[in-house]
């Protein structure tokens, strides 16, 4: 186990190093350079020179790369170019918002999709396929709805027409009730797509377990169907389900960018879009690296948890 973790960790390290290097050199490949791309038409030669100096673009490339690595290790992400606010400060403010959306989405998804998938598997197992078919086709359609479109439709229905949720207004963690109400709709939108996938995975995993001998044994021992289903079958199907929750995190991150943009929620997704629109490469570079880091770390953790939990996987 330890060997395996160390090997995986070495791989993770190489990947992270690669990500950082890739982002650094890709940004240096911008025609002209990052400073002139950032300045656009608005800056005179002198101001441009100052900006270039300030971004360290006059140093030799190797030196710049080394400085960049050093600043990452010391968590010094620099300042945004337009507003001169430290990037770390912006992220510290935006990150809790995005993480609350992501975690609440996972919670809501698990609460709905696991019972739904289990019941569908049970129905399929018993040969009563109508609900199962309904769920499968529903899952497929929902899975393919572009999340920004779903978000707009929900916004139209539940905010603008029915008025259940506020469509705008400030978002602040200081007022938890208002905060929850404000992020409720984004969470629902993200959950809808995740629920479809998760319910399908749960269904497949549970269905497979239901034809195992030990499930028949449990039935033969006179346990109630409910107990057989939720105690025996679901428990053993938990492993693939947990893995998929971990792996779907990438999709979730993609989704947060979109809902934050639509519902104007000041999370890191919105920060990224703002950064791109104002050509603030310092900000964009840090955020992209951050997203990648978050994503690979979660995949790494999922992999280890999977291996630690499953006695059948050998090292």
């Amino acid at each position, binding site marked *: 186990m330890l060997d395996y973790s160390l090997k995986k960790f070495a*791989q993770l390290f*190489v*990947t*992270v190093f*690669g*990500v950082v290097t*890739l*982002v650094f050199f*890709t*940004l240096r*490949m*911008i025609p002209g350079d990052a400073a002139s791309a950032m300045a656009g038409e608005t800056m005179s030669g002198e101001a441009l020179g100052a900006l270039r100096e300030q971004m360290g673009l006059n140093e030799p490339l190797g030196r710049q790369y080394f400085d960049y690595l050093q600043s990452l290790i010391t968590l010094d992400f620099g300042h945004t170019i337009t507003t001169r606010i430290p990037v770390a400060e912006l992220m510290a403010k935006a990150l809790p918002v995005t993480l609350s959306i992501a975690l609440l989405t996972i919670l809501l998804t698990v609460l709905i999709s696991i019972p739904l998938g289990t019941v569908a598997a049970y129905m399929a197992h018993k040969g009563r396929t109508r609900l199962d078919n309904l769920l499968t086709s529903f899952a*497929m*359609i929902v899975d*393919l*709805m*572009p*999340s*920004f*479109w779903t978000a*707009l*439709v929900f*916004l*139209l229905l539940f905010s*603008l027409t029915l008025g259940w949720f506020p469509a705008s207004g400030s978002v602040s963690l200081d007022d938890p009730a208002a905060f929850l109400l404000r992020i409720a709709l984004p969470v629902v939108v993200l959950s809808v797509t995740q629920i479809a996938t998760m319910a399908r995975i749960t269904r497949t995993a549970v269905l497979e377990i239901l034809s195992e001998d030990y499930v028949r044994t449990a039935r033969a021992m006179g346990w109630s169907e409910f107990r057989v289903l939720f105690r025996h079958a679901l428990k053993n199907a938990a492993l693939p389900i947990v893995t998929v929750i971990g792996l779907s995190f*990438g*999709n979730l*991150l*993609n989704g947060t*960018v*979109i809902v934050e*943009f*639509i519902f104007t929620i000041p999370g890191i997704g919105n920060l*990224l*879009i703002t950064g*791109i*629109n104002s050509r603030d490469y310092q900000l*964009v570079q840090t955020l*992209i690296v951050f*997203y*990648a880091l978050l*994503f*690979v770390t979660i995949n790494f953790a999922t992999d280890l948890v999977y291996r630690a939990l499953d006695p059948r996987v050998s090292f």
Partner: protein
Amino acid sequence: MADETTELRTRLHLSLPAFSREGMLANAKVRVALCILLPILVLTAFAPLLPLQAPLETNLRAMMQPPSVEHPFGTDRMGRDVLARTLEGVKVSLLVGFSVAAIALVAGMFLGTLAGFFGGIADRVIMTVVDIFLAFPSLLLAIGLVAIVGTGLVPVIAAIAMADVPRFIRLQRSQVLSLRARPFIDAARTVRASQGWMMTRHIIPNTVAPMLVAASIASANAILVEASLSFLGLGIMPPEPSLGNIIRDGQTYLQQAWWISTLPGVVILMIAFSLHFLSDGVREELDPRASK
């Protein structure tokens, strides 16, 4: 001609069932997919012949009209016909979907075969790079790339393909690795088949079908990603219509003119749905082991 095709098929070990009653068309999923996809394709191809306003033509006397016989999808804030714009956007979507799938297929097969068949340093290098690219959530990688290379049709296709190619390399490599261990390759080796022969005659033809299935799913995803990028204002830029930027346009007028944003979304959904159904059906027909 017919003989040539048959011979080619046998040579490729592909045995693609013909598109006939007994073959692909017998599959219910393929039929459903084609029933949705074909009308959309025909409408898109013959859009200029339809009695619709041109996609870029504005009419300030008919702004934000609800759907009617004259404007089946209504009009937008500049009095442009939403259906005409949607069909123009579908053209962009299909172009993006097809190009991305083609790029990912070709690059993925080439690099994946290289990594899987020869192993060693090539494998190490390719897979390390693949891992680096797969470290980014796909939409975010595309967003990052577009931020650098700029907006527009070609950059968008390139950005989405960049996110897809690593997945195809991985799939192709794993297929090649498993095929390489099969007895018929040992057999080929015992009769002293050259590496090139084994690769082109035995390995690659057997990887084609799963790659084609993956490509059709990739094209559906590419259409969704392009729409998302354009929606975020990072893809195809107005006035050039794309399904994503039409929906973005309508966002501001969601309450007064719901049709601008919602109806093009239904079209995206129909295209993505039919492409997935098509790939499902094709997979069922090509792989005798797949459950129907």
